[in-house]
């Protein structure tokens, strides 16, 4: 008979026996190994590694990009000729953003737009708002709108000029983010050592921090400095408005004239800015006339570019907003009055964060780097010889089903066949037989006239870039009259300043590292204030402007001037930011 005692003996014996086998030790080791790849840790895909070339489609700068791909999947992006901005570096994450739009009811949207077109009241218009004009897709829209009887093409109006930093001796930047998102960084930084940079800006921005001279002007008075330097405003008046000493302004003006060639840049190169440059003699040296890449002849029938201000109030029966490529958006507060009461608004967008919030129909659009398209000519030219450009954003990954291309949508509505628009345009460029083609894979540049069209087209699709030659006629551009200087009133004691106006509405999830996991950037819904502003760190407040309100959290920062509230750029802020920059904060 076995007793309990015997069982104990047996158990003890077998425990001792097991200890003399590999089993327990193996289990200990195995659990440690299991902790190396326990559930939930993704395994990166393996496979052949290839390089693909494309151009970044996240802003008009269109930097050349080399994508490192495992099989067909890009795993990292790098600039071909220099670094990329953080948005560009993480562009390949955008297709997987959790807030990305994937579904939309296209037939319904198409029907609604068709109804709005059919509603042919003579004062009713159908408009397309294009945030990045100058693309082939933009031309398709313009052609489609021209085909419609009431079509209007809305786009930010800019004079056709490009900036060439290379010859510049002195650059006066009136609040332009010259070193931080103004054109492609490789071009800017290649020229950087050649010029003296004077940054006039109320806030010590990233550019101001690295400028050779930072003029801390009164918020909103940058343009007065521009006028003073150009001589259209007296020194005393300028000194009063900017808060600088008269001698200081005179010194800036003198250094621009003496250490030329000079250049004045502003966030938007408006006619007025161009006029100052003309006055400095920069035209043709650092500011160049910009030409479009050649167009097929049959495209000449296109709707003209209409500024939003020229649209009658309440006249838009349908508004299609092309947000498939990021660009500086117009404030919704400025758009909304132009809509008819029953207007149909269709947004083509990646996410619900932008104009989609105001749209009646939202159609998901492909994101960079899913869509094939071209980029408008660059603002910052690489050199005098080559300014106009034609570059494709070659897709690195395939867009999922259900995406809508705005240009294709509109051409379908207008009954236009624009399927081969890109190829047609390339053919036109090739036919012009000007300029040269640069391919990144081998770093070669070859004259277009030496290439067959098929090779040209193939090279463009493999991430090539066409550079046209500049024809500097020396003709001065047509300039619009200058806008009056905005004046902030009493109820709006603060000036609203935003960081990075050109940031896409949707950024890679990794970008949150810049504001959540470090203090490098101002996070969304944070507002930096001078410590003397009377708010404490973390206080919640409502930011109000004449155009709307938005809730924010205060972050104290001694580098922000008193009287300024600095906020991170978000679609909500874009909605309420006016050109005058008036704002106030109301504590919650």
């Amino acid at each position, binding site marked *: 008979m076995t007793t309990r005692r015997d069982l104990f003996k047996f158990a003890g014996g077998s425990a001792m026996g097991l200890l003399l086998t590999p089993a327990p030790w193996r289990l200990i080791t195995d659990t440690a190994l299991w*902790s*190396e790849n326990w559930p939930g840790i*993704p395994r*990166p*895909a393996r496979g052949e590694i290839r390089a693909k070339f494309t151009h970044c489609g996240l802003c008009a700068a269109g930097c050349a990009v080399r994508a490192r791909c495992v099989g067909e999947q890009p795993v990292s992006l790098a600039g071909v000729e220099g670094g990329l901005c*953080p948005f560009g570096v993480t562009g390949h994450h955008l297709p997987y953003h959790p807030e990305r739009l994937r579904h939309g009811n296209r037939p319904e949207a198409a029907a609604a737009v068709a109804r709005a077109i059919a509603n042919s009241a003579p004062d009713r218009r159908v408009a397309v708002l294009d945030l990045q004009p100058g693309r082939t897709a933009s031309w398709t829209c313009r052609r489609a709108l021209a085909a419609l009887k009431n079509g209007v093409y809305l786009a930010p109006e800019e004079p056709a000029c490009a900036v060439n930093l290379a010859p510049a001796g002195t650059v006066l930047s009136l609040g332009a983010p010259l*070193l931080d998102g103004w054109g492609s960084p490789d071009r800017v930084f290649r020229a950087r050592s050649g010029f003296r940079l004077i940054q006039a800006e109320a806030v010590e921005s*990233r550019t101001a921090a690295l400028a050779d001279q930072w003029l801390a002007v009164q918020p909103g008075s940058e343009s007065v400095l521009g006028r003073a330097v150009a001589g259209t405003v007296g020194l005393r008046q300028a000194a009063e408005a900017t808060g600088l000493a008269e001698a200081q302004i005179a010194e800036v003006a003198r250094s621009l004239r003496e250490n030329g060639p000079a250049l004045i840049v502003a966030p938007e190169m408006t006619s007025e800015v161009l006029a100052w440059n003309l006055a400095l003699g920069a035209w043709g040296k650092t500011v160049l006339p910009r030409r479009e890449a050649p167009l097929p002849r049959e495209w000449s029938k296109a709707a003209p570019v209409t500024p939003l201000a020229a649209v009658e109030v309440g006249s838009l029966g349908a508004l299609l907003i092309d947000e498939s490529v990021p660009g500086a958006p117009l404030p919704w507060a400025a758009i909304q009055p132009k809509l008819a009461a029953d207007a149909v608004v269709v947004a083509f967008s990646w996410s619900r964060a932008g104009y989609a919030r105001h749209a009646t129909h939202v159609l998901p659009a492909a994101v960079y780097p899913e869509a094939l398209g071209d980029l408008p000519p660059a603002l910052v030219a690489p050199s005098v010889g080559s300014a106009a450009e034609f570059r494709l954003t070659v897709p690195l990954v395939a867009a999922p089903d259900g995406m809508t291309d705005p240009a294709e949508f509109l051409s379908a509505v207008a009954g236009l066949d624009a399927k081969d628009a890109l190829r047609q345009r390339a053919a036109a460029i090739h036919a012009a037989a000007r300029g040269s083609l640069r391919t990144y894979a081998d770093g070669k540049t070859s004259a277009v006239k030496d290439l067959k069209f098929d090779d040209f087209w193939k090279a463009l699709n493999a991430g090539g870039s066409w550079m046209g030659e500049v024809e500097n006629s020396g003709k001065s551009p047509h300039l619009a009259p200058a806008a009056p200087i905005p004046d902030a009133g009493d109820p709006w004691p603060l000036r609203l300043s935003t960081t990075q106006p050109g940031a896409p509405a949707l950024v890679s999830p990794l970008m949150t*590292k810049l504001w959540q996991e470090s203090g490098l950037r101002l996070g969304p819904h944070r507002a930096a204030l001078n410590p003397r502003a009377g708010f404490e760190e973390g206080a919640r407040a409502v930011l109000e402007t004449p155009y709307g309100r938005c809730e924010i959290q205060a972050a104290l920062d*001694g580098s922000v001037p008193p009287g300024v509230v600095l906020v991170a750029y978000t679609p909500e802020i874009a909605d309420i930011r006016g050109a005058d920059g008036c704002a106030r904060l109301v504590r919650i």
Partner: protein
Amino acid sequence: MNKRYGMSIDIDKCTGCGACMVACAVENNVPALPGANDRRGITWMRVYRVDNGEEYPDRRSAFVPMLCQQCGVETPCAHVCPQQAVDVDPATGIVGQMPERCLGCRYCMAACPYHARYFNWWDPQWPAGMEKTLNPDVAPRMRGVVEKCNFCHGRYHRAKERAAAAGEKDIRPGEYIPACVEACPAGAIRFGDLNDPSSEVAAARHEAGSFRLLEKLGTDPKIYYHSTRDWVRQIAFAPKPGGKENLHG
């Protein structure tokens, strides 16, 4: 000959755009987690904003990219790791952290004066689908281990393999550069072999205005900074709480 990889960072060129930070995260499969903040997140490369302590309009800011300083002498972290999860590779001088060996005691983090080591407070996670964009050359780390910059060691492997495939004995200068160096739009970061007198970094360390952080600790860091501004060079020294409102990271 053994290499001694090092870096030279020109603060006067850094715009603080953060491209290096995200490029690093992309290269090294570092996730951005919902609960992470500036004290719990992982940014092997982290850019700090520093200022001269003055008030507006005399305030001047600069940006200081911080990464593992790759200490070469008495490497504080390697010295204290109880189980040899941290080592200094004699062939490259790179301070390596082996996550699979790490037990997560965080002693090395307490030892590091540069706060350049990061703990995985969570298991890594990416938005659905984004795990497809992970770099196959770097293994994602599990929760509970420490990690840090290793000069993109995956790229070093890649460069060595390329050299082997090409039948070359050694990698050539410039064949191997970390992701942050590649990404920096301002070209503020240079990388190379400090033992190679012809390399850019070897020359840069002797330039006027070149300095290292907390050099007096005697750990021989291999990251050299450069600035022509006097107040910027003050960051090399211990904090001075008695002075003006201190700088913010």
